[in-house]
């Protein structure tokens, strides 16, 4: 894959766009890629990153990345034209709603909004009207809002109140309205709160997990999460799970 753009977003995030000489394989919403980060000190394993968006026309893959350690820091230095080795697409995907009339809420926190953009774009394509509820610590952590707006209404919370409603996503007023299904990705405590809300209100809920991975394709069994039917691999049997299936203490 060849880097076609690297766009800084705020102080801690960046958007990488990649093209490929051949046509990109079909990618499903919720799937991820495994990036080999070369020449980064201490980085031995690949780094899993969600598919943020696929631009069919431009044959382009987008990754939205947060700088947290050496691997993502190195990725933040990628330049247009750099060639990056990645495995893709990996994992299962969010499931499409029963009907286009369903009231769908996509709840993202921090960089966990990444897979929701692609999911939102496909929902819109299929005639749904997805709503997005995006949370961040502060306004600086909000990204791609204009992109999301292309595909549906966007609601925002920030912990410090610097944008949208103040508080956590689970405190947003929009949650008072009727919702049929929630798709969520973000920090585990946030997803658990969302799952609890969904459970209490009898809402379908799918969450995309971000467990630590070694292989990314079901070979090592390192990335498991406990489910109603035992340990499941987040990389190959996930990353998307119906939250009812997960053994979360919620």
């Amino acid at each position, binding site marked *: 894959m060849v880097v076609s753009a690297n766009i800084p977003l705020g102080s801690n995030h960046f958007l990488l766009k990649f093209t490929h000489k051949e046509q990109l394989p079909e990618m499903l919403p919720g799937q991820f890629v495994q990036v080999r980060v070369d020449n980064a000190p201490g980085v031995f394993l690949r780094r899993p990153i969600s598919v943020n968006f696929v631009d069919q026309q431009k044959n382009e893959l987008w990754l939205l990345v947060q700088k947290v350690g050496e691997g993502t820091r190195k990725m933040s230095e990628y330049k247009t034209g750099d060639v990056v080795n990645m495995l893709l697409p990996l994992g299962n995907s969010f499931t499409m709603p029963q009907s286009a009339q369903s009231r769908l809420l996509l709840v993202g926190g921090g960089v966990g909004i990444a897979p929701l953009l692609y999911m939102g774009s496909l929902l819109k394509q299929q005639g749904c009207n997805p709503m997005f509820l995006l949370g961040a610590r502060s306004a600086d952590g909000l990204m791609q809002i204009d992109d999301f707006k292309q595909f549906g209404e966007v609601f925002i919370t920030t912990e410090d109140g610097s944008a949208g409603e103040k508080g956590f996503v689970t405190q947003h007023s929009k949650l008072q309205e009727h919702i049929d299904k929630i798709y969520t990705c973000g920090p585990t405590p946030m997803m658990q709160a969302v799952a609890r809300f969904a459970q209490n209100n009898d809402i379908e809920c799918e969450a995309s997990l971000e467990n630590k*991975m*070694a292989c990314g*394709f079901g*070979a090592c069994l390192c990335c498991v999460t406990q489910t109603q039917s035992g340990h499941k691999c987040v990389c190959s049997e996930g990353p998307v799970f119906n939250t009812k299936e997960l053994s979360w203490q919620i």
Partner: protein
Amino acid sequence: MADLKIRIGELEFKNPVTTASGTFGFGEEYTDFMDLDRIGGIFTKGTTIRHREGNAYPRMAETPSGMLNAVGLQNKGVDYFISSIYPRIKDYDTNIMVNVSGSTIEDYVATAEKVNELDKIPAIELNISCPNVKQGGMTFGVSCAGAAEVVRAVRKAYSKTLIVKLSPNVTDIASIAQAVEEEGADSVSLINTLLGMAIDAETRKPYLSTITGGLSGPCVKPVALRMVWQVAKAVKIPVIGLGGIMNTADAIEFFLAGATAIQIGTANFIDPAISVKVVEGINEYLDRHGCSSIYDIIGALEA
């Protein structure tokens, strides 16, 4: 094009490159990336008599040039293997060897007996060295008496090629290899993971739910090479070398140290097609060095 065929016990391998247990699933996980028929063999995920859930998450930590794992032999048990996995994989044109793990001698024996019945499984690898399970596993592998005892029992129950996988967490691996050889093992494979630990200085917590785990990857290669060299000098049966092999040069080093075959483990996670590339690389190396057979370099260290 040199001759890459090697022999372990009664069993012929089309080439000496195999994949290590626990890093290659049951092979199927890799079919998107490579052609399984091109490698010499596959060692399956550790299989036990009963279903095991393995250890709690987190089970993995990255370390300098390596990783720790604490999977803890998660598997659905040998019966599930026989009924559900074996039928799907048995017709690959490569040697499929079941990695037999356990906590008691009875379990090892019972599992080996069941696998003995499978036509297309020509060998087992007896894992007496897993550091990630509370009972059994490594405890057998760290003493000559313990290793001999379990091999003796399994040897009686298993009639095909018996490979015993040794633990590196010992004072004298060569004498354990000898003990195992005396009990009729056809081969020894080494090394399993080194017992290690990782801590998050900021949270003050261990990275693994089990606190300690098994270290693998290039960081362990110097230790693995040394042990292969010590064991190859000490036993007559063929040695299968592994530990940190990432590329052709690493593989060649193990052959020079005395390994008849190699296993590729953690490297599969970083390049899932690496094993096929190493087969090609070995071919190229042998040609370049004017060797007609892989046996020309086995144990050929100029020391």
